[in-house]
């Protein structure tokens, strides 16, 4: 297909056209569990069911988008990327720059059958309307991780957390908000300072200034109790994880409630690692998606593969802690009995909170504009103070 558009044919035609082709999936490749999930579970599955060869290429998302944008600029109609893994800012950029092929989710049998297509979580991605340009692949929620040997009872509220920090100076810090997770931490604080549901109202500069002022105050007063007295902050979540794994700090965090499982198993995190959320604020959750670039050379193959990624089998394997352990955006209601049971029976591991607790405290993502706004203002208001 060289029209640059999502193929218009019947699903049957698409699948038969896709047969025997190769699909290139470009995605962040820094997690062994995820990589193995793709290579050892999904690739064989797709090969067997659809006779499509799935090829994973590790590349950071901003670079993928950069590549697409340059190809667009150079008028390259036939690229190499068939599927990308995006959300948030990146999606917004990609969509605004016309880097995506277009709306395709309504074509996917599995999406229509097993997912709650009307859900806000799928309609909006950080405030950006998805318009079917991307299909939900996974769902994560923000949690804190702590070393239960050092912290006997995890804080339940922001106040608790602050007390804990004051009692144990230097044992807590958060990543620089230019990092995805660090930014999410600040977004929680925004939630804490307001009663309105920020997720609903798009970005409002004036309002953010207002809430922001309180957030900066708070952060500045907390500074002396932070790791290295807030002189510096870990520049990425990885850096914070390192501090945590060396037990230099007692807590880390992450935008995936199950991410500690692997790290504990591999001996990176202490076995006593547990997770908690701040019940007064809640925990922001988001969905991440799969999309098709504008110049994918094999859009049929991409569609078929994405459909497969959304299937209950695939999602089930993803949820199992063996490889990835990430929760699924699938609607349990729409599953048949057998599948639902299988899903419910999975033991996600010691460090993962109860699904019900996560669900209760779920908060929607903010508009992507907040991300940039927090990044810039934090540097001015906090870092260089």
């Amino acid at each position, binding site marked *: 297909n060289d029209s640059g558009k999502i193929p218009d044919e019947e699903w049957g035609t698409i699948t038969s056209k896709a047969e025997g082709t190769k699909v290139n999936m470009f995605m962040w490749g820094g997690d062994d569990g995820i990589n193995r999930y793709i290579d050892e579970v999904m690739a064989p599955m797709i090969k067997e069911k659809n006779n499509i060869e799935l090829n994973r290429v590790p590349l950071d998302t*901003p670079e993928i988008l950069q590549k697409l944008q340059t190809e667009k600029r150079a008028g390259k109609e036939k690229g190499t990327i068939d599927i990308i893994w995006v959300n948030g*800012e990146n999606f*917004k*950029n990609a969509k*605004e720059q016309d880097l995506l092929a277009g709306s395709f989710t309504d074509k996917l049998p599995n999406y229509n059958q097993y997912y709650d297509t009307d859900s806000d979580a799928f309609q909006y991605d950080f405030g950006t309307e998805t318009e079917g340009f991307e299909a939900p692949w996974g769902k994560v929620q923000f949690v804190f991780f702590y070393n239960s040997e050092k912290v006997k009872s995890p804080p339940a509220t922001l106040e608790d957390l602050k007390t804990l920090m004051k009692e144990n100076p*230097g044992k807590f810090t958060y990543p*620089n908000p*230019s990092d995805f997770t660090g930014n999410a931490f600040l977004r929680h604080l925004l939630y804490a300072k307001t009663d309105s549901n920020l997720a609903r109202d798009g970005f409002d500069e004036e309002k953010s200034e207002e809430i922001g002022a309180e957030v900066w105050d708070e952060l500045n007063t907390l500074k002396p109790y932070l790791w*290295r007295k807030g*002189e*510096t*902050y870990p*520049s*990425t979540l990885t*850096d914070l994880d*390192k*501090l945590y794994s*060396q*037990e*230099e700090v007692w807590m880390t965090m992450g935008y995936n409630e199950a991410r500690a499982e692997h790290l504990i198993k591999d001996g990176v995190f202490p076995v006593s690692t547990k997770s908690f959320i701040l019940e007064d604020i809640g925990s922001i959750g988001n969905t991440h998606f799969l999309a098709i670039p504008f110049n994918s050379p094999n859009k049929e193959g991409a569609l078929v593969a994405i459909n497969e990624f959304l299937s209950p089998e695939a999602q089930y394997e993803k949820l199992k802690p063996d490889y990835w352990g990430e929760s699924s955006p699938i609607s349990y209601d729409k599953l048949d009995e057998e599948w639902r049971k299988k899903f419910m029976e999975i033991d996600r591991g010691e460090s993962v909170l109860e699904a019900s607790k996560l669900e209760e405290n779920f908060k929607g993502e903010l508009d*992507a*504009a907040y*991300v*940039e706004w927090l*990044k810039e203002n934090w*540097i001015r208001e906090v*870092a*260089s103070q």
Partner: protein
Amino acid sequence: MKWPANNALLLLPGLLFFLLIPGLGVVLAMWESVRGGGVFTFEHYRELFEQDRFITSVLFSLTVTAVSTILSLFIGLGIVKGFSPLLKETRHKLLVWIPMLVPHFVWAYLVYLLFNQSGFFSSIAGVMGWIDDRSQFPILVQDRNGIGIMLTYVWKEVPFVTLMLLPVYATLSKGYKEVASLLGAGPYQTFRVAEWPFIYPVLIETGAILFAFIFTAFEVPRLLGVTSPQMLAILAYDWFYSGNWSDRPLAFASLVMTGLGIGVLMWLVLYFTNKKRMHITKGIGN
């Protein structure tokens, strides 16, 4: 030797390479830095200088870069000078070149693992009982003075300096040294007359390469730097990948400006040293 036709022919591969491959890239980068809404403008450069963050970052980068470059050159030269006969052997060379084998950020990571407050040395100090708690260990990485960054760069670039200098030392004529020493030159003066003229062009060029590299690379400072002050490269990187790409021109402007600055400096250096170098090239071989 003067055969103009030959020269043009010999220069052809190099010129073709430069024009056909990086040429457009370099031109485009410059263009992006002076493009504003489709017209030519120095707006982005003006904007750069209005940002305090930029100024502090440039000053910090300059200090860190200058110190690292100079130290690397010094130590590298020292090692080559001290051990040049030994360094002729492949295994010795490879031993010294080890740090070049691993990428910069790995080296940064190593420095981090060795020197952070929970790191190897801190831990050893703890085991030995020299310190009771890791917070007593001096902050050597992710420090405000850039010590960690400089440590990494010096450590990593010294082998590069030796790599650049070794060929020169391997072919240095010992006759000049002998003459100098018989004319009464002490070790330092012998070095000045029989080694320095042959190595300083290489040192300057190596220095320029190092300077450019350290000034503009972001991997090391990302791991070992502090949130503020920031190395320019980090700033540029942030701008480049900032959410909606609206800050990109700033990234282009800052990097193109420093790149061109170093380029022009290089040009001047070459312009003023080439003649002397030519004297040497023609005069060697008696």
